[in-house]
């Protein structure tokens, strides 16, 4: 084996009331991609934040290239050759791609003056080398989530670091983009460099990693060679039990149409979208990034204005001007961006859970706090949300557990139609199974679900029927029986390459 790049040992870190890491250890060698897996809240991100100096460890040792070091901040981490792509983006939306990548390291013309031309040139060169398709001069705020992730990756690569840490880099990417990223990583890894790769997508571990370290409840569990490991084995190490991967029985007959969308268009992207959702159905909505799935969902619930189209609920035409109206009519939308659009991060868990259903907990405008507390507790247990109590500030939960809070609040509202946008983004395998079970249970009790997902296996496994979108249109429909990955990809890439052309379309008007 080649040289040891990084070694962590005896690492502990506690937050008030939470022991996030306990005597954790891990080694990274040159030339390898080490996958780090564990349930939501296992302590993966915390470990990475210790490595970048955002947190200081309670105890433990970090050894970089044979030298024991104390890391006090990002800058120092970079000097030690460590760069990190955090789970949550760290970008400046008002700056361009190039300005973001080289922030703090701007090429200068004379002392304090900037050389914008040199900056853009260096960025273009970097993007060329790494094969990332971005325009250096575009504002980051205008990019889609996936492209913002690309900016983060480009930025991390620009440091020419020895150790690259990626905290769920693929959570927002589709399969094609994941493949491109893997290609990038393979090119990056040489004898002198290594990658720590955190992911909840078990399927990609085989693709990219050489070894897998498993962490559970802040403690080291085991490290396996990827080539020798089987996925069920990894998963059982992660969650401490074996999971069944059984596709549930689908109900034979479809119920009546509950939601009918016809001719829906938006100024920006959607063109003449028709859709029917039946009672008790899980309708999968697949497509490439930027195909317009999120836009469709937002348009249905009135979060964005529509330029044409009709909506019918149970056969009656309705007009939905905002999400409040949608919720009243029994349509709920779970956003894909929980941090910005899903949660009140500074407020506690039970309050977040109750937010959608406050009317239920009030008489004459006055709140029943005891009932809110009780319901909060009920859903924390039901969804196994890892939190000390309903009074915990939501920001302090791990990403996956935050996602569960978003789901809980919509379950509580008890809508007839639920639109889940990337419901399992950033969620560990165990929790995923729980959410799948929940979705099935909802469908069985007569609720109707639209599930938007970029993970094809998930779409295939869960959906009774699959709609595929491309460039703002529905490009095809597949029944559960006829659907497979290949057919979906065919429909998703129907027409021109959607990936690059969706932006200029927006600019035409």
């Amino acid at each position, binding site marked *: 084996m080649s040289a040891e790049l990084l070694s962590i040992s005896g690492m502990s870190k506690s937050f008030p*009331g939470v*022991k996030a890491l306990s005597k954790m250890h891990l080694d990274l060698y040159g030339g390898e991609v080490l996958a780090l897996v564990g349930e939501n809240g296992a302590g993966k991100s915390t470990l990475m934040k210790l490595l970048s100096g955002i947190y200081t460890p309670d105890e433990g040792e970090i050894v970089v290239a044979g030298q024991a070091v104390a890391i006090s901040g990002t800058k120092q981490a970079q000097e030690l050759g460590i760069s990190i792509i955090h789970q949550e983006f760290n970008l400046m939306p008002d700056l361009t791609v190039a300005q973001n990548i080289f922030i703090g390291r701007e090429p200068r013309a004379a002392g304090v003056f900037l050389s914008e031309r040199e900056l853009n040139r260096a960025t273009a060169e970097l993007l060329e080398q790494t094969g990332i398709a971005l325009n250096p001069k575009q504002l980051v705020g205008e990019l889609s989530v996936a492209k913002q992730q690309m900016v983060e990756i480009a930025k991390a690569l620009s440091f020419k670091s020895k150790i690259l840490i990626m905290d769920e880099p693929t959570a927002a990417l589709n399969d094609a983009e994941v493949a491109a990223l893997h290609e990038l990583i393979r090119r990056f890894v040489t004898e002198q460099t290594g990658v720590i790769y955190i992911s909840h997508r078990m399927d990609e571990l085989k693709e990219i990693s050489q070894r897998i370290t498993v962490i559970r409840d802040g403690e080291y569990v085991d490290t396996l060679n990827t080539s020798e490991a089987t996925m069920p084995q990894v998963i059982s190490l992660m969650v401490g039990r074996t999971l069944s991967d059984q596709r549930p029985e689908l109900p034979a007959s479809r119920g009546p149409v509950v939601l009918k969308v016809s001719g829906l268009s938006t100024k920006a992207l959607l063109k003449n979208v028709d859709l029917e959702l039946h009672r008790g159905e899980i309708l999968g909505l697949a497509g490439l990034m930027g195909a317009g799935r999120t836009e469709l969902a937002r348009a249905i619930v009135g979060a964005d204005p529509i330029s044409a189209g009709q909506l019918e609920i149970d056969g009656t035409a309705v007009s939905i001007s905002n999400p409040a109206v949608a*919720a009243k009519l029994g349509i709920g939308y779970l956003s894909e961006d929980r941090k*910005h659009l899903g*949660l*009140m991060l500074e407020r506690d868990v039970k309050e977040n859970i109750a937010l959608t259903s406050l009317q239920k907990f009030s008489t004459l*405008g006055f*709140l029943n706090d005891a009932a809110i507390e009780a319901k909060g507790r009920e859903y924390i247990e039901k969804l196994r949300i890892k939190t000390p109590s309903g009074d915990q500030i939501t920001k302090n939960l791990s990403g996956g557990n935050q996602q569960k809070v978003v789901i809980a609040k919509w379950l509580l509202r008890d809508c007839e139609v639920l639109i889940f946008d990337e419901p399992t983004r950033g969620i560990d395998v165990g929790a995923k199974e729980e959410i799948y079970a929940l979705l099935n249970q909802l469908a069985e009790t007569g609720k109707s679900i639209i599930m938007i997902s970029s993970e094809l296996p998930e779409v295939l496994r869960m959906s009774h029927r699959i709609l595929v979108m491309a460039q703002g249109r529905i490009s095809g429909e597949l029944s559960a029986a006829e659907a497979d990955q290949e057919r979906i990809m065919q429909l998703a890439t129907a027409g021109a390459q959607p990936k690059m052309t969706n932006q200029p379309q927006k600019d035409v008007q």
Partner: protein
Amino acid sequence: MSSPALTSKVKSNWWKASLQQLLAFASLIILVIFFSVASPKFYQPTNLSNILFSIVVTGLLAIGVTLVIITGGIDLSVGTGMTLCSVMTAVFLVNLGLPMVLGVICGILFGALIGLINGIFVSLLKIPPFIATLAMMLVAAGLSLVISGTKPIYTTGVPGFQQIFAQGKPIPGLVIPNAVLILLIAAVVAGVILAKTVLGRYTYSIGSNEEATALSGVNVIKWKVIIYTVAGCFTGLAGVVATARLNSAQPAGGMGLELQAIAAVVIGGTSLQGGKGSIIGTMIGALIMGVLPNGLSTIGVPQEWQNVAVGIVILLAVFLDMLRRRKSVS
């Protein structure tokens, strides 16, 4: 699921919240003790009652501002808005000759109208609150002069008005005037709204994450308009009390009061980011803002130094609060 460690966590949360108010309260106590020691004249019932009386208008304005700030907004219009409400109350009572109760209600409702307009601009038309209320501040200042013809309107002809809404001392032996009781009642009402009602919960939610609240099926636009309108009622009430106290509507004043009110809110621990804050904190903040000039003058500090002292105390109070918060985070 809840281990002993976890329970202790929850307790410590509760403690934190109390501590925050405790800290502003501590600043207040320290000031009171300091001034009492420095001058025997400070700690006299009459003087303490003076202080309470002097914070009534700012306090009422600060209550409204607290609601708005918790939504993540700001209200610069409360100072001159109060003046306009004062003018309108006098117009209702004197020029239109409405019965006292009706005139007062109309005065408060006029405040609600100002709040409603603020709310529509901020919420429906999406003008940043700083701008919308800055514009309203100017408009209200102008309208006060226009409507009153730049002259005070005297309410001396309205029997009982001054007594009931300002000077009257309902509790025999106690020197606390009605105006102070009105502030107290208003604070309790606002406190209950914030802590116990749907409106209060949405106030915090919107301040915490407006978009997420909207996507959760809350009609944020409507609720924000309501919050600004309710806040406007307190501005109207402040106008009524100011009119009663001076037995006249003074059309030229009010500018600058908004900064005093905002200072009181912030000293009381309400964050300008929105999502956090309390009425009790605001009341403590208003008391600090009232004790300071009074105490400084009582111990004979020349007036030109008073602004300097007030500035420094604001900094200290907020800084201590920050320190505490940072400590409790790490």
